Structure formats: structure tokens, C-alpha cells
């Protein structure tokens, strides 16, 4: 019986090769796309899932209810962790986590390396397996380091790393360490990254701050005991906070800050390690909204659904040729169930072929896909326990949707009517039309959404930020270089060259540099009995000029005044906070302490020093050398920008041979802020294009079927004198109507969704009606072309031939 079915299936598929090809190709492409989309989403969901103790691992964060609003951050004071371990028995292990150094030296060769300072518990809590060396207590000694395999190979080549000594650049000095163990490379889906681990005692300013409760510099991770819950911990943490943060709480109370829902002004909280990738509070986290991976899954489902609809429509349309066979089988004694099984089996066969083809294509396309969207996907992701069963489930679902409905429909047909050839076709046409409309609603939806997203990204990239970003080169100063000295030397070195307009320095980059990093520095102080908070930016002379900022009151920093190292420039937002321009100019602000207030000497026009997702906040600029410079900014003339970039690199190399730095223009940096959006929107656009293509493949196949059925009618009409254009219109107009309807349904939905999405941006475009017209035009054009190919073919056919063959 089974062989009989298989034969029938195979011969049927072969007989309608074109439709079969459309079916299999469409489904295969849909499977490929879905697999890639699911892998992309799976990678996001797989972050930090590899830790054996992931259920118990939590990151600590603190919430502070200021007068201006609630601040939540993961940076914590150094004495907190020892106190925590002391007072909370349920904290089984805890580790601080902070950058210790970026530079190591081995036999006079320097290597950039991400060295993190951690507590000895770190390697017990997290699953970063050790390969060789001291596996029990690799960080027992203060002079031990653990190194990853990749870094070890880079530094020591093929030599045995364990026991080697190397030097690390710490706070302006080289210090010697001994490699005690080699760890496996950190998985690519780990939020915590490092090349080397050393003891936390080596992090910058440890000696000064190890007992300071008012300075927050690093992250803290804890492993709770198996029975403990985060909620119980947070309850108990209240007394702990009251004890150690008493002064902070007093200040907040004085300012009239309003406590949060739990009644506390300062709260200590936990978040599961597996959540930090999706969290913007955690510094190590990815701040990726879960919206994106879920969106990818949804689009994957959409695309699969569209391909399923093709399958359904073609099967239903083909049912007329199959119905006679099915009717006869029923007369010969087939149960309805058997007939359904047979038809469903055929769907499984086709879907199976498509799935195999889809998996093969996904396998071969993966490297290209990764390169195109700067992803780092691997098939290892398939090892996630939910993925393969999920895929199988989806496959069964696809066969049920795609094959099940048509099978039921065909099996239910009245045998006698089928054999008499008097089948009513109206109902299945209605189903077909509904399905086509659904397909095009989804496709138009995707087109509309991607168009709007694309417009918004473009707007973000093009919007003037209030400073010159095109002509400013930003040079990150390496760890081991004295930044103040470097700035002076670069000033001297570059001053003679034409086209160099200004050289200055700062401690925070604009946008995101090549290293992908961005930083925020906020100060708060009491002024006139109230707490004032402001972004804090160290700059240097000529910063205002180099950045093209506009001075609206007062003056710029100037070498002519000896006292400017304690002078401040503020922006308009900050001025407003201080009581308006007049009150602000000349105001003495007790930023560090009231004995040494700093004077506001000028006010600059607001500019977007942060990403356009955020409103402009209060900003204070200073040129105090206490805050070390991290970047040198060079303003160059318009014109030969690559030439100036080369000049800057050359001069740097001349001053610091062998030291590597990676300068970039500020506009590259600001673009990089929207990298994630760009990546996702790239994927979305491709998905939308795919959806439209697959929908049109279905439309094409349907029109082939309909044209063959209407050949005779077309022939007769031609004999009666209809023009080719007239016939094409006649044949295409039904489909055009369906597509138009779809666009009309999709537009308001897209408008609503994108209106929601745009709320994430402080600066956004208004959704305009043109987008929907454009999307409609695209969908319509593609559909009309698809259908017309068939209509024109039918219309051009020799009428005599078509009448005869019928």
C-alpha cells in the first residue's frame, strides 16, 4: 500500500513538475530563511546559558531613587562584596569583575589583552573550564594569572604557558605575574569576556577605594545556595543597605526623594545571569531588547506560513485533477482516513524534500550570512535542547497546515459529483483568495515596517547633532601612553601641517569607537540645598572650536587665564537646572567639595553628545587634569579626509613607534551607535524581500493553473476579436484586486506597530502616508508582473490551437 502511495505521489509530482518545483523551491527557501532566522534568535537566547550553575548565578545591581528620577546601575563599591559574603550565608560565592589592564608584555613584546580582575570564587562560580595548570585554586596567589588558550598561543606560541612569567601594565607600572592555568576560550555567547584573569586586588585605585562606599567602579556576581531565592535575598538586603549606605540615604531624604515601590530609597537587587544579555542595567550585558530575537522568530514563522499558503493553494488548485483518483479510491474501498493519510503523506514527502534542501542551503549560506550581517552563528547552536525538537514540531506543523487542509478538503468531496465532473469550484476559490490576501498582508506588512525602520535609521544618521562629526578624527590613547604628554606632542607635531585646524583631548568618545566602547560619567553634588546631577566630560583647550560647538554665553576655556583648570563650561540643559542662563553664568559649583567650588565661565548650545535614542541631558565640561584624557581629537579641513587620516596615523607612529591605536572619524563612531539596528534592519529587509518573492512564486503557480484552465475561454475571446491587452487585463484584474485589498489591510497594522517601535527613540520621524503608497506600489507591481507573464502568454497563444486541444 505504502509503495502504491509513494508511486502515485512520485508520478503526480513528476507530472506537474513546474508546480512541484515552485512548491519545493518556495518551501526550501522558506526553511532556509527560517533556519537562519531561528539560529540568529537562538544565539541571542543562548547567551550565558552554558554555565552549569546558571540557575543560581545572579548579578547584583543597585537602584537609587534620586529627586530627578530613578537610577539603576550594576556598578558597585569595592567593600560591598566582602561585606556581602560576611553577612549573607546564602551567598555561596561572589566575585567582583573589573578591567585590570589592557596591555601585557612578554620578552619585550607588547600585546593588547583584556585582563579582568576577579575574586578567587570567579572560576568556581562560572563554567570557564581550565585545561591545564593549577585547576583547584589558580588564583590563590596574588601574582597568578589565568590565561585563555587563544591568548596563550598568541603570546607564547607553542611553548607551554603554565609557569611562564609575563608583565602587566598596571597604573603606570609593569608588574610581573606567573601563569598558573590555561582556560578554554570564552564562548562567543558569553556576556563576560576576558583574555586573562588576575586577582581583583590589582584593579586601578584598589588601594584607595577598597573601603570606599561612595565610589562605584565594578560589577558583582554572586552564586546563591541551591535553596535560596532572589526575592528572599532582596528582602534581607534591606537591612544591609540601611547599614552600609546610611549616608546616601540621609542625603536623598534631605532632598525629598520619593522612595520606590518597596519603600526604600536605595535598594540592592539581583538579576539572573541569563537575563543580563537583554538588560541595559548590567554593564556587561548586551542591552538587546528581547523584541528583536522574538521579531526574528516571528518573521521566520511568517515566511514559513507564506510558503505553506503557496503549498495549500497549489494543492487545492491541483485537487481537481486529483479528485477523480480520490473518488475512485473511495469507491474501491478506501476509508476517508486512508485517503487523508495518503494526501498528507504526499505533503510530508514534498515538505521533507524541501526541508532537506533548506537545511543544505542554510548550511552553505551560513558563512555568507554571517559575513553579511556581522553575525557569529554556528551550527553548534543546534545543540540547544529545544531547537531540534522545535524544528521537528514546526516541520510536522507545516505538513499539517500545508497538506492537512487540502487533504481534508479533497477527502470530503462528494464522490459521485467528482466522477460526474460537476464539482462546485466557488468555495475553494474563496479559500484561495483568503489565503492569497493573508500572504500579501504579511508581505506588505514587512515591506511597510522595513521601509519605516530604514527611514528612521537614515534620519538618525543624517540628523545634525550640534557638533561637527565629519571632520573630527578621534584617536584612542593606549593604556601605556601618558595621555597629557601625548596631547602636547601631537599638538606640536601636527601644528605645522596645512589642513589641521585644531587638536584637543577628552575622556569620553563621541558615539562608539572601533573598540565598540562607550562610556558615561555622571557627577552629582549639592547646590543651594538641592542635588544637581550632570554628565561630566573632561575636555581640553580648543574642544569647543574643534567640535564646532556654539557658545551662547560667557567664554571658552582659554590659556590666557591661569585659573581655568577649575573653570566649567555647561550646556543649556545644565543652565536650566541651575536656575536659568543668568543665574548659571558665573555660578560657583561645589562639584568635589564646598571648599573648592568651580566657576561656570560659559554656556554652550545643547548638542547630542549621546545617541539619539536619548534626550539631551545636563552636561558639564572641565579641563581638570585629575580626570585623565582617553582620546585625542583632531579637527581637519574639509576635502581630503583619508589623506588627513593617514597623516594623523603617521605622526602617531612617529611619536610612539610600535604602539598601536585605531583612529576613526566621529561620524563613523556615531553610525556605530546604531549598528545593532542596522544589523537587524538588514535582516528584516532581506526577510521582507524573501516574503514578497515567495508570495509571488505562489501567485505565479496559481496563475499558471488558472490560465491552463481558461485557455479555451481565451481562445474563444480572441476569435471574437479581443485584444491582447484586453485579455491580460481580464486575467490579471482579480489578483490585482486581492493585492490591493491586502495592502489596505496591512497599512494600518504596520502604522500601529511602527508607531510603537518609534517610541524607543527620543528623536524620530513621523510615519507618513507615502510609505504605505510606496509599499502598495511595490507589492502591486511585483504581483502584476508575475501574473502578467502568464496572462500575456495565454493571450498570445494561437486561438485555434487552444480551442482544438481542449
Amino acid at each position, binding site marked *: *500500500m505504502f509503495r*502504491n502511495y509513494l*508511486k502515485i505521489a512520485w*508520478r503526480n509530482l513528476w507530472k506537474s513538475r513546474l508546480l512541484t518545483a515552485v512548491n519545493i523551491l518556495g518551501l526550501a527557501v522558506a526553511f532556509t530563511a527560517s533556519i537562519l532566522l531561528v539560529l540568529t534568535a537562538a544565539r541571542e537566547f543562548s547567551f550565558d546559558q552554558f554555565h552549569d550553575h546558571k540557575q543560581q548565578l545572579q548579578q547584583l545591581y543597585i537602584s537609587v531613587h534620586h529627586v530627578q528620577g530613578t537610577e539603576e546601575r550594576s556598578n558597585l563599591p569595592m567593600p560591598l562584596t566582602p561585606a556581602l559574603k560576611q553577612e549573607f550565608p546564602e551567598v555561596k560565592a561572589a566575585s567582583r569583575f573589573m578591567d585590570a589592564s589592557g596591555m601585557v608584555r612578554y620578552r619585550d613584546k607588547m600585546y593588547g589583552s583584556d585582563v579582568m580582575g576577579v575574586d578567587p570564587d570567579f572560576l568556581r562560580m562560572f563554567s570557564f573550564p581550565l585545561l591545564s595548570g593549577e585547576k583547584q585554586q589558580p588564583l590563590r596567589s596574588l601574582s597568578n594569572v589565568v590565561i585563555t588558550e587563544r591568548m596563550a598561543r598568541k603570546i607564547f606560541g607553542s611553548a607551554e604557558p603554565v609557569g611562564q612569567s609575563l608583565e602587566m601594565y598596571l597604573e603606570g607600572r609593569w608588574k610581573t605575574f606567573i601563569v598558573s592555568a590555561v582556560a578554554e576560550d570564552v564562548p562567543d555567547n558569553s556576556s563576560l569576556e576576558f583574555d586573562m584573569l588576575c586577582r581583583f586586588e590589582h584593579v586601578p585605585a584598589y588601594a584607595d577605594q577598597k573601603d570606599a562606599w561612595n565610589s562605584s567602579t565594578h560589577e558583582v556576581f554572586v552564586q546563591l545556595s541551591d535553596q535560596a531565592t532572589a526575592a528572599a535575598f532582596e528582602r534581607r538586603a534591606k537591612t544591609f543597605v540601611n547599614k552600609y549606605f546610611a549616608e546616601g540615604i540621609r542625603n536623598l531624604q534631605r532632598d525629598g526623594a520619593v522612595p520606590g515601590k518597596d519603600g526604600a530609597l536605595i535598594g540592592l537587587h539581583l538579576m539572573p545571569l541569563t537575563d543580563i544579555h537583554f538588560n541595559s542595567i548590567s554593564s556587561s550585558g548586551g542591552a538587546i531588547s528581547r523584541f528583536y530575537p522574538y521579531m526574528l522568530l516571528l518573521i521566520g514563522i511568517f515566511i514559513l506560513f507564506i510558503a505553506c499558503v503557496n503549498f495549500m493553494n497549489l494543492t487545492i488548485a491541483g485537487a481537481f485533477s486529483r479528485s477523480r*483518483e480520490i473518488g*475512485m*479510491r473511495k*469507491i*474501491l474501498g478506501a476509508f476517508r482516513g486512508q485517503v487523508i493519510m495518503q494526501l498528507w503523506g504526499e505533503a510530508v514527502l514534498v515538505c521533507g524534500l524541501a526541508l532537506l534542501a533548506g537545511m543544505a542551503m542554510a548550511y552553505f549560506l551560513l558563512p555568507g550570512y554571517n559575513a553579511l550581517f556581522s553575525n557569529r552563528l554556528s551550527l553548534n547552536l543546534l545543540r540547544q535542547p529545544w531547537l531540534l525538537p522545535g524544528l521537528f514540531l514546526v516541520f510536522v506543523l507545516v505538513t499539517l497546515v500545508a497538506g492537512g487542509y487540502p487533504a481534508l478538503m479533497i477527502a470530503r468531496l462528494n464522490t459521485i459529483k467528482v466522477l460526474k465532473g460537476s464539482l462546485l469550484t466557488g468555495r475553494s476559490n474563496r479559500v484561495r483568495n483568503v489565503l492569497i490576501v493573508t500572504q500579501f498582508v504579511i508581505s506588505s506588512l514587512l515591506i511597510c515596517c522595513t521601509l519605516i525602520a530604514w527611514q528612521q535609521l537614515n534620519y538618525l544618521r543624517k540628523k545634525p547633532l550640534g557638533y561637527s562629526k565629519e571632520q573630527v578624527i578621534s584617536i584612542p590613547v593606549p593604556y601605556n601612553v601618558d595621555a597629557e604628554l601625548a596631547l602636547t606632542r601631537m599638538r606640536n607635531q601636527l601644528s605645522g601641517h596645512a589642513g589641521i585646524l585644531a587638536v584637543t583631548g577628552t575622556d569620553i568618545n563621541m558615539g562608539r569607537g572601533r573598540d565598540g566602547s562607550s562610556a558615561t560619567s555622571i557627577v552629582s553634588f549639592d547646590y543651594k540645598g538641592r542635588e544637581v546631577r550632570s554628565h561630566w566630560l573632561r575636555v581640553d583647550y580648543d574642544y569647543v572650536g574643534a567640535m564646532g560647538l556654539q557658545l551662547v554665553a560667557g567664554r571658552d576655556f582659554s590659556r590666557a587665564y591661569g585659573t581655568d583648570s577649575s573653570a566649567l563650561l555647561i550646556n543649556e540643559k545644565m543652565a536650566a537646572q541651575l536656575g536659568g542662563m543668568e543665574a548659571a553664568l558665573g555660578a560657583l559649583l561645589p562639584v568635589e567639595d564646598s571648599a573648592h567650588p568651580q566657576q561656570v565661565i560659559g554656556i554652550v548650545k545643547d548638542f547630542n553628545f549621546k545617541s539619539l535614542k536619548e534626550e539631551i541631558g545636563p552636561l558639564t565640561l572641565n579641563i581638570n587634569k585629575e580626570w585623565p584624557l582617553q582620546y585625542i581629537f583632531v579637527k581637519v579641513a574639509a576635502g581630503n579626509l583619508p589623506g588627513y587620516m593617514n597623516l594623523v596615523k603617521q605622526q602617531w607612529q612617529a611619536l610612539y613607534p610600535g604602539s598601536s591605536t585605531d583612529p576613526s572619524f566621529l561620524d563613523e563612531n556615531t553610525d556605530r551607535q546604531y549598528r545593532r539596528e542596522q544589523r537587524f534592519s538588514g535582516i528584516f529587509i532581506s526577510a521582507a524581500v524573501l516574503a514578497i518573492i515567495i508570495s509571488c512564486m505562489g501567485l505565479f503557480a496559481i496563475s499558471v493553473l488558472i490560465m491552463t484552465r481558461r485557455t479555451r475561454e481565451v481562445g474563444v475571446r480572441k476569435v471574437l476579436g479581443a485584444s491582447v491587452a484586453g485579455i491580460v487585463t481580464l486575467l490579471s484584474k482579480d489578483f490585482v484586486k486581492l493585492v490591493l485589498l491586502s495592502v489596505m489591510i496591512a497599512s494600518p497594522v504596520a502604522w500601529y506597530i511602527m508607531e510603537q517601535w518609534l517610541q524607543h527613540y527620543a528623536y524620530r520621524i513621523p510615519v507618513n502616508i507615502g510609505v504605505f503608497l510606496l509599499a502598495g506600489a511595490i507589492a502591486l507591481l511585483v504581483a502584476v508582473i508575475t501574473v502578467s507573464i502568464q496572462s500575456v502568454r495565454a493571450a498570445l497563444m494561437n486561438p485555434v490551437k487552444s480551442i482544438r486541444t481542449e
Partner: protein
Amino acid sequence: MIQLKHISKHYPVGFGKNAVLDDIDLTIHAGEFVSIMGPSGSGKSTLLHILGLLEEPSGGEYLFEGEPVHKMSEKKRTQLHRGSIGFVFQAYHLIDELTVYENIETPLLYKNVPSSERKSRVADVLDRFNIVAKKDLFPNQLSGGQQQLVGIARAIVAEPRVIFADEPTGNLHSDQARVIMQLFKHLNETDKITIVQVTHSEQNAAFGHRVIEIRDGKIR
């Protein structure tokens, strides 16, 4: 074997209904060879479909081998189609995608006949109908007469007790028709299969024992 009591059939047409069969009483005994005759549109096919359990009568009672048909489950009817009833159509209705051999084999597959027996029974029938040479051809590679032979072979391979044939020779030349009729007669006499056929030709009807005249939905 077959007993119809006051059977009627009508189709809905617009808001009214179109009566096709009206108060039919009919008994057919096992082993009979009956021909149904009548003008086009008189309801012959409808009657045959009702006899073959393909359509439900609108009223009246139908006993098949003593059992009331309207009380039968769908499953039971399918079982009868598998074992007791064979059909032959004017348009043959062979399955285009299957070869002659596979077409004949299909009823046995549904009857779950073991593979070796299936082979020998299909071979038997092919042999008997003299179409062994054609067994690997597809229906569209055969003439009408040959297709109908296959249709009959398919109808009898599961050894039914009754065959319903709706104008089996309607599309055939008269010599071809005679071959088919002789085959029916033979099946009726040697295999004791009850045969009910619809025909327009007096000659064909003469092969049977009895003729039932139907006109305007009534038996004359």
C-alpha cells in the same frame, strides 16, 4: 440480495426540488443479470448509485443482503465496497497515474490481501482478460475497449458478489461492446456474480435475464 421499498430521490433546485426517482419498489436476487433501460435523464444512474451505496435515497427503505442500508455506518459501507460491490463506469475512471497492473491491484491493497496472493490474483485476472502484455502500460496508452476491460478486471479482482455497471459500453464500438457483454455473461454464469447494468442497447440488454424499464423516475 437487493430489496428497494418505496425508494424516492430528489435534488434541491433553486427553492423547490427536482424529483428524480419516485416510489421505486425493486427486488434483485443473487445470481441475477439485470439490465436497466430508459431514456436519458430518467434516473438510471441515480438508481444505480443508490444501489451501489454511493448516494442516499431521500425516502424509502433499502435492504442490501437483508441489512437496512440507512443504518449502516460509513465504515460498514466502505467494507462492502471493499468486498461485496464492484463498479464499472462508462468513462472507465481508471487512475491515470497507475499502470494497468497497479490499477487492478489497488482494491486488493485496500482489502489487505497479502502480497503473494495479490500477485497471483492480479496475474489470474490479467490472464483471463488477455491483457498480460499490457500490464505495464498506463491507461492513456490503451484503447477505450482495453481500458474498459481493465475497469472490469479491477471491479472483479476482489471477488465481489455484485457488479454495478453504468453504461459500460457507452463509449465503445459494437464489437468491443459484445466482448464486454460476453464477459459479463460469463462472470454471471461461472462465477455466480450478480450483475446490474445500465444500457441503451436492446442487444446488450438481451445478454441479461431481465430488463427494468425506467421512465420519469418510475419503473414501468
